[in-house]
């Protein structure tokens, strides 16, 4: 079974780097404009439709969005974004379940999901200052101060 799935995955993504990680998870590295076609391929060719979570990461030289899809196996689409202007196309039309995770990406990392229909704040309060993204590595957790310390400087 394992090799069968791996072969099908490699065949479906001939131009991308597919890595088999620990515990049988597959990782596929992508650029932002490859994301929508890749999600389409997962749905059409491998019938993987369940998006478990989108994990944002601040890799310091880039932002990474890890789209964890679950189905027959776990496939993680790793999208690397520009650190200065992180943008990624929204999956709103393809996977409605992605909306809540994309709002979190915006709130916590400042990654802009282009085409998202409803970008109300979710993970941070409504009066949170603009431009402070708590999970970025240059924002430090400080009990007396807070994330606004960066803004106050």
């Amino acid at each position, binding site marked *: 079974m394992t090799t069968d799935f791996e072969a099908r995955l490699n065949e479906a993504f001939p131009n991308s780097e597919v890595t088999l990680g620990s515990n049988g998870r597959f990782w596929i590295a992508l650029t932002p404009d490859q994301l929508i076609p890749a999600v389409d391929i997962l749905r059409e060719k491998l019938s993987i439709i369940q*998006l478990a979570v989108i994990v944002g990461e601040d890799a310091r030289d880039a932002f990474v969005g890890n789209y964890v899809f679950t189905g027959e196996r776990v496939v993680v689409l790793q999208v690397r974004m520009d650190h200065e202007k992180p943008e990624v196309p929204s999956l709103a039309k393809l996977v409605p379940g992605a909306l809540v995770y994309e709002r979190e990406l915006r709130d916590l990392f400042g990654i802009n999901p282009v085409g998202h229909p409803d970008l109300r704040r979710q993970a941070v309060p409504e009066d949170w200052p603009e431009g402070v993204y708590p999970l970025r590595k240059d924002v430090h957790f400080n009990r007396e101060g807070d994330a606004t310390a960066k803004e106050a400087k």
Partner: protein
Amino acid sequence: MDDSTFRINIGPQHPFLKEPAKFDFDINGEEIVGARMNIGYNHRGIEKACEERNYYQCLYLLERVCGICSHSHTTAFIQAVEEIMKIEVPRRGLYLRTLVCELERLHSHLLWLGVAAHEVGFESMFMLVWRDRELVMDILEEAGGNRVNYAINTVGGVRRDISDAQRKKILNMLGVLKQRLEYYVQIGTTEPSFVGRIRGVGKLDPKRAAEMCVVGPFARASAVDVDVRRDDPYAAYRELDFKVVTQDSGDIFGRVIVRALEIVESCNMIEQLLTNLPEGDIVASKVSRKAPAGVAVSRYEAPRGEDVHFVRGNGTEKPERVRVRAPTMANLEAATESVIGSFVADIPIAIASIDPCFSCTDRMAIVLRDRRNGTRVTTWEELRRYGIDWYGKNKGIRF
């Protein structure tokens, strides 16, 4: 919204909500024609805080993500850490871990059955179910030493073993529990006033459920056949014999049946675990405090649905990134939608039918000083001091 519709705002603080969330319902007469929700009123900054703590400290912090499925979050996290560190957990350790998993599911589903009964005004069932939930809590206390945060997981295994006498005691209590559970399952699935109140309410059809990526009993009641315990087995689930319960009605009644039958399955699994409990160590020896650079995605079937933890190690004692995805996050949007077409009086049970847990879902903002109104932020030390002084002055209690 036309003239005949009216919008009601519910939350963030509202008597029917046990935890904060905000819902806007558009109603036309008694019928709900539109719904939307917002969350984010319960942030505690846990993901950021994890980045500044070592793996053992993270474990205790993540235990407190949720009061009901505390073991779920630690297990999901610890599995990811063990995967990065490449630690083999001894078989007895895995069995004990799984034992607490299933006990937790038992107490969580019983809690939910009580809450569901309460939300539709069936108070006697609520009282009875919660009385017997205490039996499970006693077992958990016996096995883990605590009623709520059992703190049984550690890197490489579990922290507490159970003796043979304890094992027998738990099996006895389980016997009593099983008898009573049969009665509750029967009442919950056949009692006309209860069933009449929930059948056909809060419908979510299978296609939409799959699109919205819902998980757990909520998905299984809409014929989405997912269960991490079977699809991607972890801990000792490979060696257990159990059925995945699904229903195709997609309404609240279906969700009651799924959970009721899962309670029975859990009891059977606990019996299997205790009868086949292997001998040996409970924790791996020689566990490093540092994790190498690496990444792991861990899945866990919590009582409310799939928990996903994403952990990245960077070669130090502290993780580079921890991401917690609790099941309510995946389910809430779909649950809000499922209310459309029902009546206003159905809102509490429809929202409660996914067993929402907002403390799991909202994890990560940081206390913010309100500069506009000049509100002061009380530090932990000040709060502690205040509590001690208050009790000293008013109640004569010295700490």
